[in-house]
Every structure is written in structure tokens, then in C-alpha cells.
């Protein structure tokens, strides 16, 4: 089975799987040690580097959800031998045109998958694949209470990567007692999972992973009645119509979602993290602080391979303040 790699949450794994291909959401392990480019987002660089170094990827799907990744698609097409598909995800979302563009783009992706050897799914096949994926996602989501924040995020990343996730293999963890905080921002690298440990060591716990790699970007639950009638439209609505993200214009739904979750989870502080040169997240830091009305710690992820050790003491100070 061919592997289709992607990193953007607006790429529906179900759509790829329904074409009898293996969807694999890549979370780069670490930033490359060399080759930093002035102005280029370290995450985009990490993703390009990760794909270029692999030989198990048959095609890669990038999305237009940020300019850096849009342009990275060209870099990747040039530097690697894999087929690169740029999925046009509209920034606007309040119009029928925006939904039409997204739906048409998924159909175009489907045509590519067929060209690569996949099979165009029947509506029943699509509905069945969607239901299976949703069931698997729900299992992981249901385990959220008995996994640590790190375990949960890793399980989610492993599932999206395409690995079989054995939830029972995780060591049981005690009910978190630290200060509940939200981790908000762009995508994580695997080497960033240590952040969860740092936060716990400092007396907190991530009660809401609202990074692009976390639960924020999971699709909405499929409407069961619509799923039977029109699975494709259901898919479009669950992804394009539901995922709140920073690039959307306006990005008001992201704020609504955060506000709701922060109340639900009794969040007392926000750790906000963005990559150097990521304008979309960077510009929102002051507004987040005003809008959420909570203490906000801003961390900037640069070109370093792992985490910046100085952030550990900043997290510690932040949590001491919250206690």
C-alpha cells in the first residue's frame, strides 16, 4: 500500500484511506542541525528535511494554510523525488465559494490518488472508512482521562502517523494534580514532547493541547444521518467547517473554541508557543492575552534541534506565579 504523507490537519486521512492508500501525518522528529534559512519557519524546514530524508513516502500533501508551507511545497518538489500535492485550503470560511474550493480540492486530491494507483471509493466505502477512523479517534479521545498529557499527545501523533496504538501499553498515570494550563500555538515536533514533562515538573499539567498537533485540529464528529446520505459533504463539513485555526479569516472561531475549552477545563494559564518567522501565530499573542483574560507565557521556538533549555526556567517561573 502506498504511503501518502502530510502534516496539515485539513488533509482528511479518511479520504486518503478510502482510496486504499496509507495516510501518514508526519510529525518531524527534530529540527535539522544545519541549513537554517533567514526568514524560513523552522517547522517548515523540519518538515521538508524530514520528507526529503525518507524513502517510504510515495507522495506528500501540503496545504496553503500558511505562506511558508505553500512555498515549501516548491522547495520539496525540487529537492525530493516524491510527488508533491498542494491542497488549497481557503482562508475565508463564511462563503459557499470557500466550501466549494475545499471540496473541489479534495476531489482533485482524489484524482491524484487514483493516478498513483489508488481506487476511487464508492459512497458506501467512504462512509465506512470515515466511521472506522472516527471510532479509532474516539477511542484515543476517550483515553484522555487516564493518560498523561504527553502520553495522550503521543498516542494521537502515533495514530495519525499510521501506527497501531495500543493504549494499554502506556503506563497508568496518576490523576493530574498540577495547575491546569493550555498549550496553544502551531505544530509540535516530536522532540517537543518534553515540554509536557517540563510543565509537570514545574507543578502544572497540560489540560488542553491546543497546538496544531493537538485536539484542537481534530475534525468534528460526523453527523451520522448525513454520513449515510452524503459522506463527502459530511467530510468537508467536519474538516473545513469545523477546525478552528489561526490562518482563517476572520479567525474568530479559534477564539470561541479556546474560550469554551478554557472554561470547560478550568484552565488557569496559557503557554503560547510560536516559531520564529511564523507571522500568523506571532501577531496574535497580545490579542490572545487580552481576549482570554488569563496569564500568558510566550515561548518562541527557533532553529534549535530540540527545546530551548531556557524555556524550562521560564515555565517554572510561570507556574510558580500561577500556584
Amino acid at each position, binding site marked *: 500500500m502506498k504511503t501518502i504523507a502530510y502534516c496539515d490537519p485539513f488533509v482528511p486521512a479518511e479520504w486518503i484511506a478510502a482510496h486504499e492508500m496509507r495516510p501518514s501525518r508526519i510529525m518531524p522528529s527534530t529540527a535539522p542541525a544545519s541549513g537554517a*534559512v*533567514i*526568514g*524560513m*519557519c523552522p517547522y517548515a524546514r523540519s518538515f521538508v528535511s524530514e520528507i526529503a530524508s525518507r524513502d517510504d513516502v510515495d507522495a506528500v500533501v501540503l496545504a*496553503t494554510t*500558511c*505562506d*511558508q508551507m*505553500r*512555498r*515549501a511545497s*516548491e*522547495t520539496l518538489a525540487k529537492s525530493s523525488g516524491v510527488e508533491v500535492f*498542494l491542497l*488549497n485550503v*481557503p*482562508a*475565508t470560511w463564511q*462563503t459557499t*465559494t*470557500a466550501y*466549494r*474550493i475545499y471540496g*473541489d480540492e479534495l476531489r*482533485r486530491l482524489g*484524482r491524484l490518488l487514483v493516478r498513483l494507483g489508488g481506487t476511487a471509493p464508492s459512497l458506501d466505502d467512504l462512509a465506512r472508512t470515515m466511521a472506522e477512523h472516527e471510532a479509532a479517534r474516539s477511542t484515543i479521545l476517550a483515553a484522555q482521562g487516564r493518560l498523561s498529557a504527553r502520553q495522550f499527545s503521543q498516542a494521537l501523533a502515533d495514530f495519525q502517523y499510521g501506527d497501531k496504538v495500543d493504549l494499554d501499553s502506556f503506563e497508568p498515570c496518576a490523576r493530574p494534580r498540577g495547575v491546569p494550563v493550555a498549550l496553544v500555538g502551531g505544530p509540535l515536533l516530536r522532540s517537543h514532547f518534553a515540554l509536557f514533562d517540563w510543565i509537570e515538573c514545574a507543578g502544572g499539567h497540560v489540560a488542553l493541547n491546543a497546538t496544531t498537533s493537538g485536539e484542537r485540529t481534530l475534525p468534528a464528529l460526523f453527523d451520522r444521518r448525513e454520513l449515510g446520505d452524503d459522506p463527502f459533504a459530511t467530510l468537508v463539513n467536519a474538516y473545513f467547517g469545523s477546525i478552528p485555526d489561526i*490562518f482563517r*479569516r*476572520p*479567525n474568530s472561531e479559534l477564539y470561541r473554541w479556546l474560550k469554551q475549552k478554557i472554561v470547560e477545563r478550568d484552565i488557569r494559564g496559557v503557554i503560547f508557543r510560536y516559531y*520564529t*518567522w*511564523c*507571522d*500568523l501565530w*506571532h*501577531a*496574535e*499573542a*497580545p*490579542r490572545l492575552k487580552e481576549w482570554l483574560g488569563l496569564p500568558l507565557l510566550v515561548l518562541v521556538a527557533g532553529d534549535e534541534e530540540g527545546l530551548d533549555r531556557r524555556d524550562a526556567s521560564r515555565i517554572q517561573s510561570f507556574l510558580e506565579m500561577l500556584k
Partner: protein
Amino acid sequence: MTEPPRQITLDEWDARHEALRAGGLQEPFYGGPLRRHVADGDFRLLRLRFDDSAAALRLWNFLLTEEDRLHAARAAGKKIVGAMKDLGTVPVMAYSLPNLVAFYPDGAWWIPCVMELSAPVFRAADSLGVDESFCPVRAMLGAFVTGGHFPFPDLLTCSVGATCDDFSAVAQRLNGLGYPILWWEIPARRRPDADEDAIELPGGFRAPAAQVAYVKAELERVRESLDTLAGERLDETALAAGIRTANCVRRLLAELRSLVFTAALCPLPALEMLIAEMLAIHFCSDREETIAVLRDLLHEVKGRIERGQGVLNGDAVRVFWVNPVADLRAMNLLEECGGRIGGTDYLFCHALDEIPENLPPMEALARTALADPMVGPASDRAGRICREIRRFGAEALVVSRIPGASHCATEGDVIREMAQSQTEIPTVEIEVPPVCDSLQATLRTRLEALIETARERRNR
């Protein structure tokens, strides 16, 4: 015997203005000596060198009085449209209605340069968390919140989608502060698949017909808002007339560019050409006067070419310049280093291409908007640049990075590599901040090296 044209300082312009007036120069309502703009805070003028023609004087005065025109338009009861991240589409629509005036708020990115950082626009942007890691267009955010640089528009539009993250982030920040914005989608232009209907766009790019249809639908939303604002329908006849007038501007610029870039002696300096090209974006808030200003410039250029006159040495190297500079002084610097402008892509070459007049107007505008070199792959843009390099006979290429701009991280390499492989001309990438004085020595060295290399190639 006509005095040969030359570049002069602002001090020299005082005497030159008096002499022109004494010689019978009739100026338009916004005319006058350039020095008065320094009193308004435009201190950068003191460090620039200007073309000494009456046509250039008119051009500068036209540019530097835009704010007055906008206020006058409002006082006259016209509605003002701020067309953000829109290089020549919504303004064409807005000017098709008699009681609308459109301007380009992004143009505020030149405020820090022109006012030599004396205006607090960057400070205001900093205070809102939009610091120097962003493109200088963040000055627009500061200009909105501090006021005083343009009247607040009655309608703000902004194209989003395949735009730079800097602008998208700045516009969203503005929206988050409570400024309503009509967002319209410009999808990332892609090359059509083999089994798709394809459409040739102005400028030579191709796009899937479906993408043109999306943009058309989005522009229809903009049209509805303009209708509401104006209180009258922007019908096909009015829009077609608006397109014809916009094309008049574009044809004048096309002729001007072709003459200036290819003349044996450079008939008009780089700085004045940059400003002339900018007029295409939104007509500097007065469409008819834009035409008059460009006609004057064209007349001056033609006269100079006929007389065999130029403003630079005959051996000046023709340089193709990519991206607008945040500091206007850089254009003077190129000429001081022995270069001249021999082709440009200031990010808005689609605003210089004629809008098709043989199509339904909205279809024509959609195609033009999608022809924006910045919404497609960098290799498309590079391909167009290579074609223009060959067309104008440019001998060197400068890619001028815009500090912090998301597109500049990687596109420079794409453009330079293609130019080197397809045209074999020497290239350089530089970065020009809003006030480049502290970097002038470095920039000069790099530009001189480029010019020397290009001259060396002439002797091969």
C-alpha cells in the same frame, strides 16, 4: 538649446521650481515646490536625488498629496474604499462608480522611509505585538491606530488565501482591534492538470478555469458591497468603462516602461519610474489625474529620446529589479553605482498588464487578479522575470529582499537560479530596510560588484 536633463537634490529643486515658474510653468492644483513636503515630515526627500523635469515635479507632488485628495473626496461626499493586499483589482471596480474613491492602505509601508522613522507607526505596531520580524507593511497597522495618515475608509477589503503571511497577520490584527474587513479569497494559482479546462491569464500564466470561477464569485461579493456603499449598482457597462480607463493607465505605463528600459540613454531615473509604476495600483486616489501625470512623463521621455538625452552615463548597466524597496534611496544608490533600471517586477506586474476588454468585465477582472505573480508558484514568477529580462535586454538582476516578508525566505533563490540558468546574467540578493543609511556601504559594495561583473561580461 535644451538643457540636458539631470538628477538634482531638493535644495536644487527650489531654484529649479522658481525657474520653471518664471518660464511659464502651469501647475495643477496640488502643485508647488517640493520642499513644502519636508515641512509635513517627509524628511527623506532631503536625501534623494530627483529628475529635474516639470513632469517629475508633477509626479512627486501628485504622490505626496494623496492624503489631501482623500480628505477632499470625503468632504465632497464620496465614499472611501481601502483596498488591502489588492494590487489593481478592487480599485478598478471602485473607480467605476462615480462616488467611490479607492486607496491602498498597504502603501503606508513607505511612511517610515519617507518620514525617516519620525512617524510613530512602527512604534504603534510594536505596541500591538507586530514587531520588526514582520515586513515593513506593519506600518499600515500603526497608521490605522495612530490615525493622521489617511481618512478611515468607509469600506475595507482585503484579499486573503495565497497572500503573504505578514499581511494576512497584520490585517487580522487590525480586524481583531475592531476594524471590519471584507475578506475575499484569492486561491493559490496552480498549473492546470491535463484533464482540466485551462485559461490563459494576462501576463502569460495559465490557470484552471475553476479557479477563475472562484475568484469571479469572490469579486461578485465585493461588487455587492461596493453597490451598497455607493448606493447604486455597479453594472457591466460602468465596469467595462472603468476597465477601459484602467487600461489607458496600463498602456501608458507599458509604453513608458518599454521606452525607458530600452532607450540607449536612460531617459528617466529609477526612482521616478518606481513611483510611476505604483500609480497603476490604485491611481493614487485620482484616476484621471494619474493619466495626465503619466502622459506628461511619457511626453518628457519621448522628447529626451528624440534629443538623444539621458540622465545617466551611456554605459550604465541595465539592471532588472525584483521587489519594491522599503527605502526609496536604494533606487538612487543603484544609479550611483553605475546601474540603471532595465526591467522591474515590483510584485504587481499583473497591475501593468492590460485587462481583457473582450470578456465580460468580472471574468476579465478575475483573470487579472489570478495573474498576480505572488499567488502562484515562485517558479512562475521567475519564468516571467526571465522573459522580461530577455525582452528588455537586462544585463544583471537584483532581488531585493523585503525584511521579514514570508515570501522572501525562499523565492529569491528560485528567481536567481532560473535567471542564471536561462539568461546567464549575474545576480545578487540584497535586503533593503525602511531607512538604509547604516547599510549603505554594504549595499553599495554589493551593487558595485554586480555592475562590474555585468560590465566584464560585455567585453567577452
